[in-house]
């Protein structure tokens, strides 16, 4: 050991630098994180999960759900949509403005879905307005008229439409493959996990992402049936049935109100019923409590209604579907 001190120092610096990078830096970044306010309405976010859902987190952990399901929605960008909210009184000026801005009708979600599933058809496109089209649009406000713009372009468009006497607002729309699948409306941020211990962001995606599963599947009894027999809902599901979370027992005087309503294929023998144990109920409560879609400063979006209709559970269904939804509150008055 001619170079003992040198070796010690080298080892010390190697370990200390990785400790700084992996422990100290994250602690300085998010260690002091507190509840924040949502953008629309300023409600406190996040709020702690109800007690049963907190127990469910431990069931989720104990059964290794996180090894097949992530809770991380990724986002690749943010775009702006211009929405015409009020036509104003000067149609003679507004219609030429709409035509020169190349505004158009944006295909509805149903149209986009149909186009994405039909392989030979071209994808649904923005239909630019001609004059009668623009007139027709003014009868059905509010309407998105331009899509996928940068903030500067959107501001310029709003300015042009305002100059023509109309009122227009801007939607902030996060985009990305996960969001197209309907797995969320914005990316997952550290705030979403503030009250979870341990945090379960998951390691791989064998099954669908669960960050917003409570939003697309808000029914706890659905989750119970699905845990008992995943193939009830998805024919080729590779998810193992978690039947040990349920009790098969004889029906007493009356069937239990908690007993699962199963179709004949999965139903138990006559005279028996399937009743969820406490762990299954807690897990279902946890799953229905999973929703991370509040608009925050760190992950802005314009308040829109939940995209339940657009959501899909299948990880392979990566159709290029935009998740535009009708906003419940217009951001400008």
């Amino acid at each position, binding site marked *: 050991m001619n170079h003992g001190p040198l070796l010690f120092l080298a080892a010390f610096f190697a370990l200390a630098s990785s400790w700084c990078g992996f422990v100290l*830096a994250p602690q*300085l*970044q*998010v260690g002091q*994180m507190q509840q924040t*306010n949502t*953008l*629309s*309405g*300023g409600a406190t976010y996040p709020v702690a999960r109800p007690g049963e859902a907190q127990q469910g987190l431990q069931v989720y952990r104990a059964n290794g759900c996180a090894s097949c399901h992530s809770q991380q929605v990724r*986002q*690749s*960008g*943010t775009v*702006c949509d211009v929405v015409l909210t009020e036509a104003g009184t000067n149609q003679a000026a507004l219609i030429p403005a709409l035509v020169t801005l190349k505004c158009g009708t944006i295909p509805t979600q149903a149209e986009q879905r149909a186009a994405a599933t039909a392989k030979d058809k071209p994808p649904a496109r923005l239909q630019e307005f001609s004059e009668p089209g623009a007139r027709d649009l003014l009868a059905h406000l509010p309407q998105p008229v331009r899509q996928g713009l940068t*903030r500067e372009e959107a501001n310029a468009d709003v300015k042009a439409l305002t100059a023509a006497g109309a009122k227009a*607002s*801007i939607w*902030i729309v996060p985009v*990305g493959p996960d969001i197209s699948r309907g797995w969320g409306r914005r*990316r997952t*941020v*550290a705030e979403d996990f503030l009250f979870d211990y341990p945090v379960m962001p998951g390691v791989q995606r064998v099954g669908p992402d669960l960050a917003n599963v409570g939003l697309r599947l808000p029914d706890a009894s659905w989750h119970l049936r699905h845990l008992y027999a995943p193939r009830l809902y998805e024919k080729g599901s590779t998810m193992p049935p978690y039947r040990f979370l349920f009790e098969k027992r004889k029906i007493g005087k009356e069937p239990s109100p908690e007993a699962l309503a199963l179709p004949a294929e999965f139903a138990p023998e006559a005279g028996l019923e399937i009743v969820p144990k406490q762990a299954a109920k807690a897990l279902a409560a946890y799953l229905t409590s999973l929703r991370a879609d509040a*608009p925050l*400063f*760190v*992950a*802005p*979006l*314009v*308040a829109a209604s939940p995209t339940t209709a657009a959501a899909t559970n299948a990880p392979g269904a990566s159709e290029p579907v935009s998740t535009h939804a009708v906003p419940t509150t217009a*951001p*400008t*008055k």
Partner: protein
Amino acid sequence: MPATPESAEPRAGPAAVPIVLLVLPFLILYWGMIYFDRNSGWFSQEVYAPYYSVAELTLYQPPTGGLDLARGKAVYETICALCHNNDGMGKPNQAPAFVGSEWVLGSPNRMIRIPLVGLAGPVKVKDQEWNLAMPNMGAALSDDDLAAVLTYIRVSWGNKASVITPAQVKAVKKEIGNRTQPWSASELLAVP
């Protein structure tokens, strides 16, 4: 037999480090700096991908259009809600409701005047007679706070009226000047 001198043990002499190994760490460091500069938001906890900086994030905040409902709500709940209730429904024999009230949905100039010096005496709200005195609850508020809270009242709980701007509040304050005497309903109705 004359022993040939044993060859000395091999020794490592000085050897030059290839120049490329000296340059490489600096190149990696340079690339790392550029990477952090582009992607880290300088370790701000507020910046997540796909955003690069707080400035870019600010660009994508939804336009409020002078509508700061969070601020209005905070002011409302500390000052107005004591009598008018959190849901704007008022309290019997204490304060009338804001929801659907013609005083709230009507002229902004009338509405701004009420919290500035108060309102006393008989007043008819939604076909109900009230005869109470409201103190000048808004006199101590800044223009911004008063505009935010009045706007909050005008657009919440199903109310749909125009936004009140700080400029409007300022103009009204100038018009009423030093008055401290509470309004009567008839005085307010004379205001356009």
